[in-house]
């Protein structure tokens, strides 16, 4: 049988984002507010 020389994809069970990334996203979400004015939408980042 032909030998497969390509390297197997490294198994990594730890494939998840860093806590800082999650925390950044949650903070971004809290800071972001969308203001509706007539038919326009304005985004504001309020830190």
């Amino acid at each position, binding site marked *: 049988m032909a030998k497969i020389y390509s390297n197997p*994809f490294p198994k*990594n069970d730890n*494939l*998840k*984002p*860093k806590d800082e*990334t*999650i925390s*950044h*996203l*949650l903070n*971004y*979400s*809290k800071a*972001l*507010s*969308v203001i509706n004015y007539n038919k326009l*939408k304005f*985004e504001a980042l309020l830190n």
Partner: protein
Amino acid sequence: MNKELIQDAALVSDYINGNENALSILIERHKQKIYSFIYSKVYDRDITEDVFQDTFIKVIRTLKRGKYNEEGKFLPWVMRIAHNLVIDHFRKNKRMPKFDNTGEFSIFSVLSDSSLNAEKTIIKNQVESDVRRVIEELPEDQKQVLLMRMYQDMSFKEISERTGVSINTALGRMRYALINMRKVIEQNNIILTN
């Protein structure tokens, strides 16, 4: 209430209505799938982290702007955003996955950029002009042989025919030309290396 029991759709709706905690549950629930999906395409932790973050920033903005159409397909929608951002990433880099130069063999030992950069071009021109000035210092007979040999690529037979001297004389003049040039270079501390 058990977090797992709440449907994605309900959480999305909660989030749109201002419950920030709903987003936290959604991210927690799907982070591994989305992260692995991105990683399987880009094979780089840092880029995966960036794309993951950009994906959710897009999700957050779309949800907050009220542009999301709930069809009970939150995860496939997020996956689609991630997929598009991965394509954007490769498009920005103008190629598919980069060669990972971690093994012992380096492709750059075989492939090299032979073209000179601006600095090396200037140095090369300087060296060539210095060499020409050194040649100008040589006695006329030696200079003639050297110019014919090096710049006109003539053989010593041709040089001897053109100058009317024997091949041995032409060879001798070439030899002295080189010796004299070395002398001038050493005496004046001229640096002729690129």
